């Protein structure tokens, strides 16, 4: 692979010597990497800088706040930022929290890539958990197969729900955002209704379902912790498949084209219906599976009483991952690490874990604010443009 690519870029230069001159010396040969990824130029370099700066500012402000509110600021900071890496238990906690974020992060990335602001992932995650719970209570299947059957069912249900805003958007141009927000309540209420009225274990105190069949629960990686092998494998598979779909297939291409310019997508004869509806269906499938994996990893009966919030977190993950499923694991890990760190800090030093919301909020605002560092970007652009002009002059 590597050999081919370097051979090819050498070929390019042989064919087009002048391209070498125009090329930015910092960037290396053109065509490196290859494929149809996001554009790679001054913009993408700038976006990376912007993200790092946003993260640094978020962390710096958090540190300041901790100094202001904590009696033992240094200790608090240590728990917050290093704590999760200090013991296996904490680290497994991070991984356990990371898994649902990977699923919802991929789900949100899929529809955001097509500029479809469908936030049903929140409701579908919950609904998927319910579907998996019901299947885990009512069906009997062999050990290895059972959980995957439940997860598949939840994925299908998620796809069907995801199709609703997609179809309404495609057919009547109804706002998928508004519809998805309302659907979240529907998902929640229907799920609670089903559990309360049909599967509630009246012997247990709270509103919880009957116990799942033993065969339906996913196996742990290490007996002590709740992280499950099936969950990890599925999460990795979902990221990989979503990445291949988005960047290596013609269907994913139409999704990204739609995200960039819907007129263009229609005009070039790409499949607009697929871009709009398909992206939201797939997003629903992934979110539904995520709910099921969470349910069959962390619990032995359905015991959610409120929406989990993982769907909203998926939005944060997607923003950090730039809607690229390949970057979702890292983004999810980052967010999970911060959350667990804040939790440890709270338990050890009493600084409220809401502090993590502050970091999140600051970083998100900085990332989505177009004008943050716009001056820096402008300077980079100006430098590039004037340099090109000088080169052009020398050539002429």
């Amino acid at each position: 692979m590597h050999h081919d690519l370097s051979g090819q870029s050498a070929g390019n230069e042989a064919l087009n010597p002048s391209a070498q001159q125009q090329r930015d010396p910092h960037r290396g040969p053109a065509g490196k990497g290859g494929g149809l990824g996001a554009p790679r130029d001054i913009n993408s370099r700038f976006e990376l800088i912007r993200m790092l700066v946003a993260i640094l500012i978020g962390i710096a402000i958090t540190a300041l706040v901790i100094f202001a509110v904590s009696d033992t600021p240094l200790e608090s900071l240590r728990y917050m930022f290093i704590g999760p890496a200090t013991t296996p238990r904490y680290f497994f906690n991070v991984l356990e929290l990371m898994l649902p974020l990977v699923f919802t992060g991929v789900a949100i990335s899929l529809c955001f890539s097509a500029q479809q602001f469908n936030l049903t992932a929140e409701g579908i995650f919950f609904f998927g958990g319910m579907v998996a719970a019901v299947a885990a209570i009512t069906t009997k299947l062999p050990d290895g197969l059972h959980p995957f059957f439940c997860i598949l069912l939840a994925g299908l249900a998620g796809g069907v729900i995801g199709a609703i805003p997609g179809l309404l958007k495609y057919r009547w141009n109804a706002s998928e955002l508004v519809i998805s927000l309302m659907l979240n309540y529907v998902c929640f209420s229907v799920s609670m209704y089903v559990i309360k009225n049909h599967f509630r274990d009246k012997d247990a105190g709270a509103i919880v379902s009957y116990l799942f069949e033993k065969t339906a629960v996913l196996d742990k990686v290490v007996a002590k912790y709740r992280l499950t092998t099936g969950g990890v494998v599925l999460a990795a598979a979902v990221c990989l498949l979503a990445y291949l779909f988005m960047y290596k297939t013609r269907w994913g291409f139409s999704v990204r084209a739609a995200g960039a310019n819907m007129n263009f997508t229609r005009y070039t004869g790409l499949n607009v219906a697929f871009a709009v509806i398909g992206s939201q269906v797939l997003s629903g499938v992934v979110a539904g599976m995520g709910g099921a994996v969470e349910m069959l990893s962390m619990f032995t009966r359905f015991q959610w009483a409120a929406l989990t919030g993982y769907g909203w977190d998926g939005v944060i993950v997607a923003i950090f991952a730039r809607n690229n499923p390949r970057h979702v694991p890292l983004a999810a890990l980052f967010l999970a690490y911060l959350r667990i760190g804040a939790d440890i800090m709270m338990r050890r030093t009493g600084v409220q874990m809401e502090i993590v919301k502050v970091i999140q909020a600051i970083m998100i605002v900085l990332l989505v604010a177009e004008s943050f560092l716009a001056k820096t970007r402008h300077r980079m652009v100006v430098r590039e443009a004037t340099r090109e002009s000088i080169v052009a002059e020398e050539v002429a």
Partner: protein
Amino acid sequence: MEEILRVEHLTKVYENGILANDNVSISVNRGEIHAICGENGAGKSTLMKVLFGLEQPEQGDIFVKGEPVRIQSPSAAIKLGIGMVHQHFMLVDRLTVAENVVLGNEPRRGILIDREAACRVTEELGRKYNLEVDPTALVADISVGLKQRVEIIKALLRGAEILILDEPTAVLTSQETRELFEELRHLRDAGHTILFISHKLDEVKALCNRVTIMRGGRTLGTYELEGLSKSDISRMMVGRDVVLKIEKEPASPGAVELSVRGVEYWSELGKKMIDGVSFDVRRGEILCIAGVEGNGQRELVELITGLRSGGAGSAKLRGTELLGRPIRAARKLGMAHIPSDRMVYGVASSQSVKFNILAGKVEDARYTGKLLFRDRAIDRDMEALARAYTVKCTSADQTVGMLSGGNIQKVVVAREMSQEATLLVADQPTRGIDVGAAEFIRRRIVEMRDAGVAILLITADLNEALELSDSIVILHGGKVVAYFADTRALTEEEMGYYMLGVKSQTPEEVEGAVHAS
């Protein structure tokens, strides 16, 4: 001569990295009509926007009456006595002329606008500068020429001493142009300074005292117009002698590829925009649809290419109906389309050059297997296409939005012309791009014709229409008023008569556009 405005070493870079003004310097005297000439994209509008405070420069100094100034907003410009008449009017259609004139600094009676005072002011100014308008007319009801006059009055009321007019004649009839020139001379004689932008050299020669020439974002210099010929100016504008001759053999048309019959279209307001248009495009010929803007060619081409729905009649590509079917279907049948608005339709500007050229070929077996793309073939061929179409980019991974207009157009052309099409609809293929790129694109169009592709050309550039096409259909008021099977004997003048509705052919002559039964 007293200098009223001076710009030194001004540089402006847009967000997309385009260096629109590159070390620009200019000096303008009080009481002159100063022309700024340059091709599309030379940076004229940008310079004017900087002077009017609409854009902020990166570098450079501006002096008004000898004082260094910073013009951070249009209101700052107005305070300095600089006014601007925009290419697109900034008037409120539902208000009267007088109300528009005073908008923003209305004379008041209590909390209400004093309409009488507004009318009085408008009329007074009109009388003083020979700019007559009816102050009580609704702006929606007046002609384009009058709207422009209202804009000028507006600027004068705000105390403009320096008046910027950015391509004011582009939207005017020749009668209106003559009137505008009278008004401008009158203003000059009253002591105003006028910056006049145009690339119509006759106008510049007729009206202006001096001219500053811009090319590729730079100023080449300022010259007295006396003693300067039109060809001198045009040579400086383009940087070489303009050859608008296109080398091509006479066409040898083959079978009918696209056949348009009785197409009609009503606008949303119920106006009949296209009225029974019929013609054929054969393989190996370039047929041009010409007409003054607003005579139906926009709607016609959008109906044929599927961007617009709702027409009646038929347009068949090798026998298959196109009207009312998705673009996807037409593309599969072999239609390629260079759209007139490259930013709206032509590109996904946040994606890479590679991505943009590949779109439309994603189902091609060379580039995709059953499931996955063939990345290697894509990289190789898209890079090669970008190079073959001389797209100036650092690599095919560069964002399209960062390229200049001409290079963005080349990306569009590279995609559409590599589509293995049997019909190419080229809608204003060279609008707003530099001569070099335009020439390249025209040559490619001829090559495609010679390879047997049917080409439907829509252009507002008469010269291009005559030079590039083999035959011409002229639309006026939504109808075909003329068909010329051979353009070699046709002149721009003759075309003008038909386009303006002065002449029209007999129905039998027009029938010539229809080749098959």
